[in-house]
C-alpha cells in the first residue's frame, strides 16, 4: 500500500476509459497509485488472463471472428495485388 506515505506526487492526465478501468480494478482501500503500482509489479500469467476472460465473457453476437477473417482476407488481397504488379513488370 502506498496511501498514507509521504512521497512526492505528480498530476497525471488519464483518459476517462482508463479511469473507469482503474475504478474497476481498485480493491477496498486502494488509491489509483496503489492500483497502478500493483499492476506494474504483477507478472502477467496465462492463468490470470484465463481467469479474467472467464470473469468478463462477451455477450451478444460474435462480431470479432468475422472481422478477423475479413482483416486476413484484405491483407492477403493486398499482398496478392502487389505480387501481381511485380509479376507484370518486364
Amino acid at each position: 500500500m502506498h496511501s498514507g506515505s509521504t512521497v512526492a506526487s505528480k498530476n497525471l492526465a488519464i483518459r476517462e476509459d482508463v479511469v473507469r478501468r482503474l475504478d474497476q480494478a481498485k480493491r477496498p482501500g486502494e488509491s489509483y497509485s496503489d492500483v497502478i503500482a500493483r499492476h506494474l509489479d504483477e507478472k502477467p500469467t496465462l492463468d490470470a488472463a484465463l481467469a479474467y476472460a472467464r470473469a468478463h465473457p462477451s455477450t451478444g453476437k460474435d462480431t470479432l471472428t468475422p472481422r478477423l477473417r475479413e482483416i486476413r482476407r484484405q491483407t492477403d488481397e493486398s499482398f496478392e495485388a502487389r505480387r501481381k504488379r511485380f509479376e507484370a513488370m518486364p
Partner: protein
Amino acid sequence: MKRCLDSTFLSDLVRGVPAALDAAERWARDGDELTITSVSRYEVLLGIELERSESRREQWRAVWERFAASLPLIPLEGTAAALAATRQAALIRKGRRAAVPDLFIAAAAASQGCDVVVTDDRDDFDRIGLVKAVRP
C-alpha cells in the same frame, strides 16, 4: 507440446468462450507451451480496435492485453520469411497459392518448433503443409 494459437481461437479466448478457455487451461495444465505469432497479434488487436461498440472494445482490449502479455510471441524473423517465400513459390507453381497471413503464421510457427497450429481454418494450413493444423 508447443502450440501456436491462430487468430480465430484467440478471438474465442478474448470473448470468453468457455470451451476455448477450458481447452487453453487444460493444455497449460498438461505442460503444453502456448504461443502466438506477431501476425495474429496484429490481426486480433486490429479487430478489437475496429469494434464500433466502445464498451465492448474496452472489454476486449482489457482481456486481450492480458493474453498478449502472457503468451510468448513468435516473430516473423529471417528463417520464417525465407521458409514462407520458398513454400509460396512452390505453391504458386502448382497453382495453389496460399493466403499470405496463413503462410506467415505457418512459417513462423514451423521455424520456432511449434508442433501444431490451433485454428478453425485447418484446410488452409493443411494446404501450406509447414506445420500440422488442429481444430481446438
